């Protein structure tokens, strides 16, 4: 048998999922569309953002939504020098755990910054909204350093 030519081809596998958001995540996203950020009060009084449907300790159903601030504090972060295609920014950026004012746990989002040196644990950041909010986590376009 002769050596065959090398055959290769681009191939894309797509899982086109839709996800039912339920009453709690649905409310969170609905509030994002209105440019509000809400958490939920857990059985021990902590405010959890994004809200979860069941209490992490007692498993009881949660329903008391609490609006939190649009500014917060970087708890930890990871600087991305070389963003990849799926990343939210084409320029270097930071993934960050951000504890919003009024929340008791941090949530993950990304921080826009001109340089890595400006980003630090404890730095204050503020949510920047997309021009067109539609009820999705990307309605918060990014967080910017205050």
């Amino acid at each position, binding site marked *: 048998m002769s050596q065959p030519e090398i055959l290769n081809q*681009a191939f894309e596998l797509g899982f086109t999922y839709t996800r039912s*958001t339920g009453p709690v995540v649905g*409310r969170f996203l609905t509030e994002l569309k*209105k440019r509000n950020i809400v958490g939920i009060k857990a059985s021990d009084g902590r405010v959890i953002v994004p809200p979860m449907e069941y209490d992490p300790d007692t498993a009881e159903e949660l329903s008391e939504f609490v609006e939190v601030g649009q500014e917060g504090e970087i708890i930890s972060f990871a600087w991305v020098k070389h963003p990849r295609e799926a990343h939210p920014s084409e320029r270097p950026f930071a993934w960050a755990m951000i504890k919003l004012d009024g929340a008791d746990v941090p949530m993950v989002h990304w921080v826009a910054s001109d340089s890595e040196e400006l980003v630090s644990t404890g730095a204050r950041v503020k949510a920047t909204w997309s021009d067109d909010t539609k009820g999705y986590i990307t309605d918060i376009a990014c967080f910017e350093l205050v």
Partner: protein
Amino acid sequence: MSDENEMITGIEVPIYLKYNFTAGAAPARFLSQLKEGKLTGQSRSDPGAPVYVPPRGSCPATGQPTDTEVEVADKATVQSFTIVHIPIPGNPIEPPFVVANLVADGANISFIHLMSECDNEQVHIGQRVQAVWRPEEEWDYSMDNIKYFKPIDEPDVPVEHIGKLPVTGLEA
């Protein structure tokens, strides 16, 4: 217009995995021949060794390379089949349609293809079929060169004989 206060009940969260697929030596050989309108398998070099269509380059039974190329017929036997009634997202074929595992004459394992020009309810194991090819100018490195397989007027192959030509080489 959607209500400003309308509750979000669902979101789209697609995941796309992008690959660059390289066929490898044996499948590339298979696909190159397919572009010429030929179905070819591979076999170990010892006499009576099983013929694999499509080939992967080695014998799954013994691990030896399948370095002998064997052209097989475009006639085949139905080994098993499914009548698909539920539409599959992204699949342009309208149900109901028949997907079958077919063993080409001269091969010992099956490949999957479509059956058409048939009464779906009459499709059965052991049925004889033949490839319906696309026009030659459309041939590419693809199993799609065959549009589908259609039944032919030949006696059924008994179940115990489908794909069960003598398999030797395991004794040693």
